[in-house]
């Protein structure tokens, strides 16, 4: 009776443990996915500098900021240091002093002709919108009494570091009011298609402060281009520039993924042949006593902490590569794709050796003996009989090594150079500094504000990495099983 009760309890206990461990994979997936949702809260900032200038102003010069130009720029509350400028009122003519032309922008206008210059501020000059939001800005531009020329020009250019091609809004600049008595040319510019330029207009001067809103009025219309924030975020995710902390954040994951794939692929290339050969040696050629101590020694390599391998590469391999090939290949930092992939190859070799050796061991002895009975030497039997029989399993071993390298953080972090740019498609790729997927999570998560788009994107790339490694692992398992059952 007692025994049966204990049996009953334990049966349930082990089942609960087993099933909850089985559910772990689902909960990892759930939490990665649920934290990724913050990625889709992102805003898509845009920024232009737009100024009315005397026609003689040099066009090569950058459009200046205050007070000559009005600036639409990306700024989040409190994060960009622009707060002190936010409440600037429209400057009075006296304040403008020797300035010839000026413009002040505001979105706070319902009736243009009644706009009160003293009420206009740049309070809401923020271009920090989600992909589906529209926005309208007005720009009041006029000459001051100091304006001597009879022509002015409206000039515009994208804000520094803003790339209009990566935006998700249609932005148009339109002239909607000309000063009384002036016939101005039509101004209706697509700021995305033509991110910088200028158009000449007849000069007009505001004689009094009250006239400041009676001059040229431009309307900047911002219309959503993408269907929703979701598609726009995903669109931005599959681009090739990763600069999440810039004023115009870019979350182009492809830069990281290609670097990781390059390092991992190269590592596999370096590791696969020596590993398989070593496995053949261990299983087929080594005397039993040698095998018994050699296998644990090789597996010991797998247990050396990766951060130690990283430092080893940093302090010895990297300088060594630079002093040997630095001149010939013209690179001076050893922290690059090549260094990272060599260390990564060393990291994954034991994994491949160990699994490949097990696979070879699973080939039935009858096959090998059959081969030898036909007069093949040991090596010939291995090459013609054992390896073909174990082929799927060896492939699986390679794939597991690949998956291991794909998610490795510290080696890439320490050795790859840390620059999140797209890896070039040329031999220079070998010596380019790059940044991979896993190490980006480690590097950036420490400085990130929780539950914000950047945080969400780190979870999103984690989710992609998770799905990628898990599918490779599952596929490798299937392939290896086929090797056992097929024989």
């Amino acid at each position, binding site marked *: 009776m007692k*025994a*049966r009760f204990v*049996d009953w309890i334990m*049966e349930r*206990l082990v*089942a609960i*443990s*087993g*099933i*909850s*461990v*089985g559910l*772990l*994979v689902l909960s*990892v997936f759930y*939490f*990665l996915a*649920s*934290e990724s949702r913050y990625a889709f809260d992102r805003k898509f900032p845009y920024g232009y500098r737009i100024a009315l200038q005397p026609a003689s102003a040099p066009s090569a010069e950058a459009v200046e900021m205050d007070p000559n130009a009005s600036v639409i720029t990306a700024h989040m509350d409190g994060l960009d240091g622009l707060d002190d400028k936010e409440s600037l009122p429209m400057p009075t003519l006296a304040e403008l002093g020797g300035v010839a032309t000026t413009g002040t922008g505001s979105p706070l206008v319902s009736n243009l002709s009644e706009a009160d210059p003293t009420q206009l501020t740049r309070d809401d000059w923020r271009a920090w919108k989600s992909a589906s939001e529209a926005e309208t800005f007005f720009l009041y531009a006029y000459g001051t009494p100091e304006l001597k020329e009879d022509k002015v020009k409206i000039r515009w250019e994208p804000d520094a570091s803003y790339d209009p091609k990566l935006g998700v809004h249609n932005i148009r600049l339109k002239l909607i009011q000309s000063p009384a008595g002036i016939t101005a040319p039509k101004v209706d510019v697509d700021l995305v298609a033509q991110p910088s330029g200028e158009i000449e207009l007849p000069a007009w001067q505001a004689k009094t402060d009250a006239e400041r809103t009676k001059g040229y009025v431009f309307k900047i219309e911002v219309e959503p281009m993408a269907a929703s924030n979701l598609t726009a975020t995903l669109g931005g995710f599959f681009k090739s520039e990763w600069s999440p902390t810039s004023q115009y954040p870019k979350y182009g994951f492809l830069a990281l993924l290609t670097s990781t794939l390059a390092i991992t692929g190269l590592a596999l290339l370096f590791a696969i042949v020596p*590993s398989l*050969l*070593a496995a053949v*040696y*261990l299983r087929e*050629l*080594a005397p039993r006593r040698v095998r018994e101590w*050699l296998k644990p*020694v*090789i597996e010991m*390599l797998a*247990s*050396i*902490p*990766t*951060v*130690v391998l990283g*430092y*080893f590469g940093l*302090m010895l391999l990297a300088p060594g590569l630079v002093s040997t090939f630095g001149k010939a290949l013209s690179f001076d930092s050893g922290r690059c794709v090549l260094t990272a992939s060599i260390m990564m190859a060393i990291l994954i070799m*034991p994994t491949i050796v160990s699994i490949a050796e097990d696979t070879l061991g699973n080939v039935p002895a009858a096959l090998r003996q059959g081969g030898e009975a036909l007069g093949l030497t040991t090596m010939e039997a291995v090459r013609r009989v054992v390896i073909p029989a174990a082929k799927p399993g060896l492939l699986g071993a390679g794939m*597991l090594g690949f998956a*291991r390298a*794909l*998610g490795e*953080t*510290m080696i890439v*972090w320490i050795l790859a150079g840390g620059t999140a740019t797209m890896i070039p498609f040329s031999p220079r790729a070998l010596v380019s500094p790059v940044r991979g997927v*896993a190490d980006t*999570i*480690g590097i950036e*998560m*420490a400085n990130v504000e929780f539950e914000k788009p950047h945080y969400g994107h*780190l979870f999103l790339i*984690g989710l992609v*990495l998770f799905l990628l*490694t*898990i599918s490779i*692992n*599952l596929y490798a*398992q299937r392939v290896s099983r086929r090797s056992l059952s097929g024989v």
Partner: protein
Amino acid sequence: MATGSAGILVLIIAIIVGTVLWKGLPAISWEFLSTGPQDGMTKGGIWPMLRGSILLMIGTLILTLPIGILAGIWLAEYATESRLTRAIRASVSALAGTPSIIFGLFGLAIFVLKFNLGTSLLAGWLTLAMYSIPMVVLTTEQSFKEVPQSVEEGAIALGLSKWQTTWKVMFPNALPGILTGLVLTVARAAGEAPPILLTAAIYYSTEKLSLGWDSLNRPVANLPYHLAEGYRQGGVIPEKIIWGTCLSLMLLVLIVNLAATIIRARARAKLNW
């Protein structure tokens, strides 16, 4: 060629281990191991990090042990072959191959933020335990499978119940394998920086031996994170101390490893099958 490849592998291992030993040994002294860092890490020892790593290892071991072993027993002895158990087995081995940084993210989302544990020793334990459990489950299952079927059949023939057979007959036979798997996994976990990076780690700590319940809620310094962060901040820690830290971390992992391997070899020699 095959022999040469194996030779190259052994050579690589010798070079790496040898270099770390050669560069790190001069830094190691009793004082280095037993005192905290001084003068903004430019002098002094690594005791707080060593202590943190050992604490993390012990806690992970304790948390991993019951669930990992019970779940392994279930897969080996109780789970009947069905679509569900096949799915569970596949997902456990897929998890065992999942990158440690993913567990770091998971731990951050669930333990640090959702359960509101903050960056703390406890969150680090739980995260490392999640990382270790799948591997322990697999090695436990494997160890059970290695016990000859005749042993199990004999026990059942003697009238023992399923659990009695599992616990009194199978488990002692599988124990060496289970223990080795457990210790190897936990040692590997203790050498990983990414999971604790996001859940438990702190860079600068001069903490002494003080250990109380509130230690659970505080972040801990530890060796792998110390090296990672030391790299991030660049050039602060002198090279000699870095090599010393590398060596201490490597030895910590390798000694535990070696012990586990020896225990397994001894225990295997005693079992006559």
